[in-house]
């Protein structure tokens, strides 16, 4: 049980709801329980929507899956498509792709990282950072940023647009493209398309370096606030190459504890079930993953940019690595856990993505024509990728009729569930406890959630254990009957009013 997860007694407590949490993807709400002195007794991030992809994907032909799962999300469809494709590569016996296919997929993925990080920082987070957490709410948005910082807003929009254009040219569409298929890709890149993408890249890299400087100035403007905001220690998990370099497309899973010591290292991600478990809580549709050997109380962890730049040993591109060292220096030899540092790390990754795109565009393999491979058919495949928000796991079994018989998804934001709850509890105690609650203070809670760039619509899915309440209401609003299912899957009907 975590502090502030459950109030000892709820009678007489006042409830404040932030519903919906704004400037995030998907729908969630935060509830706070306070007493008459505004002392906080309970804080929870609730996920209020659910999707049943793991269930309704069963029975579908496996080659449909990379297209279908993109519908989980409009922000990171490429990540879902690629994670599914990586799993299906194993199913079709093509674990190692042609160099051209892998590089095209990587290009698509880096475009996705760039566009997602840009939309988050410039469109969603920058209003808080540039205008103030408690600035005028009607101005606290991207248009307000554009009015006061037009160049920054314009750069953000164009950086995102470039990332989308990379996706478009590689996958055929900016959203829900179909370029990646089991065993490779179905579309080659032309020289003209490559040349188009090479235009303006140095300018974009310069802009992204400027974005990192904006974040660094924000940090330096109030280091005490920045270092303490939403602060808590936690384990971290990310994917690295064999040499310890950050790899956003393929590698091994690594986990470190709050002090940076390894928990597990270079784990083949096909064995993820050996190290990860998921817990279900009755008040949220989102599960709570944890590292099995540490248990749910101590084994939870964070993923995504801040975890990634610290679980890797280095970033294999020079500008991003230099920026990473600057960020890590604020920890004075210890890992950085301050919540707002997620933004800083996110921009470093966006710079890394641009550097990788630049490098790939100079690679002759990119214009190759050998796009698809196949081999000995397999029954089970796991695909893992570093999506913009963190480790994304797709796991499938496919029967002899080519139909999916099992699907398990552990989505990036799900890994961060406990971390986000810890962050908002930390902020609530630091900034709201025993104070008169204002909109600006409540936005501090949202700022802590936003730092994780959660994709709540991706992260909610049922595997038969989701708590659910169905009520039948008549035209006058009277409840006629209800059916409740708890987190153990047990159902209880109440027809007493029917």
């Amino acid at each position, binding site marked *: 049980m975590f502090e502030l997860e459950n109030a000892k007694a709820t009678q007489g407590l006042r409830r404040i709801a932030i519903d919906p949490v704004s400037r995030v993807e998907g729908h969630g709400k935060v509830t706070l329980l306070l007493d008459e002195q505004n002392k906080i007794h309970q804080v929870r991030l609730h996920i209020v929507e659910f999707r049943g992809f793991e269930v309704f994907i069963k029975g579908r032909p496996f080659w449909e899956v990379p297209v279908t799962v993109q519908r989980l999300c409009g922000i990171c469809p490429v990540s879902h498509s690629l994670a599914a494709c990586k799993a299906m590569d194993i199913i079709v016996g093509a674990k190692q792709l042609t160099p051209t296919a892998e590089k095209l997929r990587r290009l698509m993925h880096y475009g996705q990282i760039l566009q997602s990080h840009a939309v988050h920082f410039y*469109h969603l987070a920058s209003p808080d950072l540039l205008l103030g957490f408690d600035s005028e709410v009607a101005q606290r*948005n*991207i*248009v307000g940023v*554009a009015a006061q910082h*037009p160049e920054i*807003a314009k750069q953000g929009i164009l950086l995102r*647009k470039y990332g989308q254009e990379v996706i478009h040219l590689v996958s055929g569409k900016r*959203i829900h493209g179909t370029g990646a298929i089991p065993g490779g890709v179905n579309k080659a890149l032309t020289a003209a398309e490559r040349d188009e993408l090479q235009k303006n890249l140095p300018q974009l890299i310069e802009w992204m370096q400027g974005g990192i400087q904006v974040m660094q100035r924000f940090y330096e403007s109030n280091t005490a606030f920045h270092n303490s905001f939403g602060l808590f220690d936690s384990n971290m998990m990310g994917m690295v190459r064999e040499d310890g370099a950050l790899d956003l497309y393929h590698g091994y899973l690594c986990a470190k504890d709050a002090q940076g010591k390894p928990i597990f290292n270079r784990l083949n991600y096909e064995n993820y079930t050996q190290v990860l478990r998921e817990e279900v809580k009755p008040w949220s549709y989102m599960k709570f993953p944890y590292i099995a050997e540490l248990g749910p109380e101590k084994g939870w962890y964070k993923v995504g940019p801040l975890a990634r730049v610290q679980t890797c040993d280095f970033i294999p591109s020079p500008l991003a690595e230099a920026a990473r060292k600057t960020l890590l220096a604020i920890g004075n030899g210890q890992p950085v856990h301050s919540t707002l540092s997620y933004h800083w790390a996110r921009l470093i990754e966006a710079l890394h993505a641009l550097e990788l795109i630049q490098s790939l565009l100079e690679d002759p393999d990119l214009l190759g024509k050998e796009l698809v491979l196949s081999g000995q058919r397999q029954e089970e495949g796991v695909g893992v990728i570093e999506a913009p928000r963190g480790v994304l796991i797709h796991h499938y079994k496919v029967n002899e009729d080519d139909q999916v018989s099992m699907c398990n998804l552990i989505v990036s934001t799900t890994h961060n569930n406990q971390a986000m709850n810890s962050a908002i509890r930390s902020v609530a105690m630091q900034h709201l406890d025993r104070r008169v609650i204002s909109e600006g203070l409540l936005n501090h809670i949202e700022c802590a959630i936003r730092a994780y760039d959660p994709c709540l619509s991706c992260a909610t899915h049922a595997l038969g254990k989701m708590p659910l309440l169905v009520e039948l209401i008549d035209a006058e609003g009277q409840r006629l009957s209800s059916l409740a299912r708890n987190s153990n899957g047990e159902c209880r009907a109440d027809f007493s009013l029917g």
Partner: protein
Amino acid sequence: MADILLTAWGNTSRGDDALGPLLLRHLQAWARTVHLAQHFEWVEDFQLQIEHALNLEGKTLALYVDAGQNTPAPFSFAPIFPLKQAWHTTHAMPPESVLAVFERMAHKPPCPAFTLCLKGETFGIKEGLSATAQNHLEAAQAFAKTLLQNPNPTAWNALASP
């Protein structure tokens, strides 16, 4: 640099929602044959977002083309102006909000802008237009060509729907 902006939006897999993109593609092909294409910036998208405000920079005239439900047949054509209460916080924006975003970002009014709204009938998931929408498209093609041949606000205002 092209100084007239033509923006069309819609989902070509959603029946008559394709009217805007189909009209834009037709006009672009036609403009190439009559050597007018260089005067226009052609933008096609699924929906309007704040980034479309950037396309207004340096333009002298803008046309926004979309499919409409329960709108006049075969199409309506009208001037538009920045919305005072701009709507920018959801997945899609009306063109009036795009103009408003430009105004706030650039600290100057946008160029004169017009909408051409083609009436559609069916917007379900399918490719291809309904027969009625096809007729509306053909009518709009002829009308839009007259606009592109005489791209000035005064002439366009004179052609606005009553």
